[in-house]
């Protein structure tokens, strides 16, 4: 039986950064992935002349070369910064509510302020203050809050995090209402909620603040070759450091001995022993199905009880035989609402009725290499809870999928009327597709529902089983930057633990 210091289950973002950091940190690591390719969500697939990005819309946290931010340092540390090329996007997004609103926000902090103040002069001063609060809450959340927690002193908290103390656990809706009276201004500022699937009334204000601030200051980015290029680059770096990876290799069981992780059993029966397991699979699958205990430790059951299933997505991948200009695209990312009422849009996400909000991303608008010359790679998305798909009988699945796709296309057509006439390739993914490729309950793409109650600040690490670590969207915030970071920080915790063990053995 082979032995490794660490086994990583799943090559999603967090699994990849965990494995790479572990191996580069000197621990012998085996990375196991059920699918034939790394990435989880961060992947691509080819149809005809097109390579479709599956999940990444806008990478955050990178910063420019002159003004780098955390992700540039992280990628550098993991040995992949020079293995991929990044392409900057110049707008945050275009928000269109037909007949009501059509605005494009620039990816620039001052540009954003000027544009909003020009559009809503009566709220000029409030805009200034709001943006300042976004900036402060973001920076405090990243930098000083961890310090204050370490110091565990109220005085430190009050002096280091004055803005966080004032806004840290309020909802986006609450804070927007405090600042503004113009409803449309609030729509414009809250638009990113649609990426996360949590409506402004449930969305923790810091999550919105960070998105606005980080995307505007550190810019939104694409990766050449898509997020798959980053996933494959991470595998390359992992292999270069001496790591071993196996694809088409699902883990069936995590085995314990005296309550401690000792091995994993693979599909097909092979047993691989190890000192630590990092699971990038959903903790629900990890604790309720993979772990060899009858029931997970009490603390974990308790944690699960206060969680709610997060959203999945319905996605149409389009290869179009026309240029972005012919399609009428003026910004890479568009959000389209049917109504100004975000709560109503959110309520629809639990049904198969016509979605009231959707997005269109055109990848070759800023990165011409994302589609063959003269063509366009376009993704239409609306978030959706997976539950409604459970009651669809297998024989009705294809029809249900196409019917719902028609509805999403109809929504997008209100702004981009030509989207249907140039189709050369199309692939439709439902929450069940996500479930199939990610192995997540409900086909969840961000883990649990990310309302304030989900916050990591309210919770302990899920570390009830010594040697077992969870890394991914379920225990951090969902999305690319958070999961890349979660994997790396989990690796640090594992390395520390392995060192302690080594010392014990000496």
């Amino acid at each position, binding site marked *: 039986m082979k032995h490794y210091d660490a086994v990583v289950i799943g090559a999603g973002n967090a699994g990849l950064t965990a494995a790479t950091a572990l191996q580069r940190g000197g621990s012998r690591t085996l990375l196991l992935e059920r699918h034939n390719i790394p990435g989880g969500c961060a992947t691509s697939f080819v149809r005809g002349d097109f390579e479709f990005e599956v999940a990444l819309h806008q990478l955050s946290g990178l910063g420019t070369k002159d003004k780098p931010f955390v992700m540039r340092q992280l990628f550098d540390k993991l040995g992949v910064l020079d293995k991929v090329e990044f392409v900057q996007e110049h707008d945050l997004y275009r928000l269109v509510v037909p007949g009501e609103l059509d605005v494009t926000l620039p990816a620039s902090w001052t540009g954003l302020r000027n544009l909003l103040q020009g559009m809503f002069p009566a709220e000029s001063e409030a805009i200034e203050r709001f943006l300042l609060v976004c900036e402060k809450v973001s920076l405090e959340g990243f930098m000083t809050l961890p310090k204050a927690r370490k110091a565990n002193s*109220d005085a430190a908290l009050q002096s280091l995090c004055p803005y966080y103390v004032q806004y840290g*656990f309020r909802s986006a809706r609450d804070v927007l209402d405090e600042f503004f009276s113009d409803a449309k201004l609030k729509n414009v500022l809250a638009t990113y909620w649609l990426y996360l699937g949590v409506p402004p009334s449930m969305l923790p204000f810091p999550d919105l603040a960070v998105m606005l601030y980080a995307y505007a200051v550190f810019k939104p980015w694409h990766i*050449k070759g898509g997020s798959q290029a980053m996933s494959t680059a991470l595998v390359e770096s992992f292999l270069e450091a001496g790591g071993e990876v196996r694809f088409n290799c699902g883990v069936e069981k995590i085995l314990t001995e005296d309550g401690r992780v000792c091995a994993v059993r693979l599909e097909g029966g092979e047993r691989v022993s190890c000192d630590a397991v990092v699971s990038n699979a959903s903790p629900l699958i990890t604790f309720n199905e993979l772990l060899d205990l009858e029931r997970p430790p009490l603390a974990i059951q308790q944690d699960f009880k206060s969680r709610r299933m997060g959203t999945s997505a319905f996605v149409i991948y389009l290869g179009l035989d026309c240029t972005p200009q012919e399609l009428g695209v003026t910004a890479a990312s568009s959000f389209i609402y049917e109504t100004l009422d975000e709560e109503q849009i959110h309520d629809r996400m639990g049904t198969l009725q016509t979605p009231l909000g959707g997005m269109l991303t055109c990848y070759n608008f800023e990165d011409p290499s994302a589609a063959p010359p003269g063509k366009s790679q376009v993704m239409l998305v609306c978030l959706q809870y997976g539950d409604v798909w459970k009651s669809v009988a297998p024989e009705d699945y294809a029809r249900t999928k196409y019917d719902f796709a028609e509805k999403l296309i109809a929504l997008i057509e209100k702004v981009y009327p030509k989207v249907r006439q140039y189709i050369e390739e199309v692939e439709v993914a439902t929450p069940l597709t996500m479930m199939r490729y990610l192995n997540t309950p409900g086909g969840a793409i961000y883990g649990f529902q990310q309302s304030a109650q989900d916050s990591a600040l309210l919770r302990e690490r899920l570390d009830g089983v010594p040697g077992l670590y969870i890394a991914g969207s379920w225990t951090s915030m969902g999305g690319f930057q958070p999961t890349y970071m979660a994997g790396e920080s989990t690796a640090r915790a594992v390395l520390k633990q392995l060192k302690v063990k080594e010392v014990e053995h000496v």
Partner: protein
Amino acid sequence: MSEQNLLNSIAGFREAWQAKEALERSGTDFHEIKGEVASTVVQLHPKRLELEVAEVIDETASTRTLRLVATDHSLLPPFQAGQYINLFVEIDGVATARPYAISSSPSQRVYYDLTVKRAQGGFVSNYLLDRVAAGQRFLSSGPMGTFHHNPLYHGDDLVFLAGGSGGAPARSILLDILDRGLSHRFHLVYVNSYIDDVIFDDEFRELANRHENFTLSEVISRPPTGYWGYTGRLTEELLQRLLGDIGNKMFYICGPTPFNDNCVELLTRLGVKRRRIRVEANGAPKAPNEQTGWPEGVSLDDEVTVTVRGRGSFRSRVGEPLLNALERNGYGTENACRSGECSLCRVKLVSGAVFNPQEAHLRKSDRDFGWIYSCVAFPTGDIEIQL
């Protein structure tokens, strides 16, 4: 001071904490959905199907249909007409597989029909035709592939250009339209070499007589003397005559590679946009050396050494697709389309060079980091790979 107390002074924290406790009281530990992901996914996309030959049906001198049912006699997964399954076989100690289009209608799920035509020098087709009888069991992939009618943009004016065994997916798509009572127009232009080797000919003719929305045009490329129908290769003139106005027709092409290439060229000349043409994948190219980019001085019959890192090595021929060579030597990878489309057979090229033909639908990052699709990769010198 405990951490929770510290954070208590953050606005909204107490409320969030209380809300969390309320959720805890009303929620579950998700134990009730244990196993649900696997049991949901398997209904649509089983990794493997266990099949049994219920019947072998003689079609023509060269062709038979294997009627396959689930070994436990349950219903098979739904599929979209035009899709294929990859059939795993073991022939004289060699484990391999071949994809076959399902020729039966998706309106019933008791069986899948696979219609197998003898391929000159074929390994698996000959085995299936000569050595398989009712009762034999196989494993297969679930139904896959993108060669099917897509209601989002294909429209309702459909033309299928089929050559030989291309009649198999054509039959499934036709039966699907008729069984569901759709009003789509379906025109099958069916090209075969010999008049006595046309699969499903009687059935197609009879259906064409009975259904106004189905038109059958038969073409025989090597007709006997005195044959009165359309003959010879497909030409621009003949197609023009058969099709009339191109309008917004959607074209499906499935047959031998030269037939497919010819059809695409003719349709393009007739002004059909490439986006209105779907061509079914067709395995690895027989003559990769005729494609652009083939290295000079390398011939298909050259011998090379393939090393599988950590496991061993063997001699192989340049012209043999890597996956086949691996299987013949007791190795293997997951696979399904065996045509460079699904990427399941992706392996890492550690050293040496392979030729990736136009069939290889590699991702950009696969090219950048040396990953190849072994089903369509041709080693042009000694190579080492990692399985």
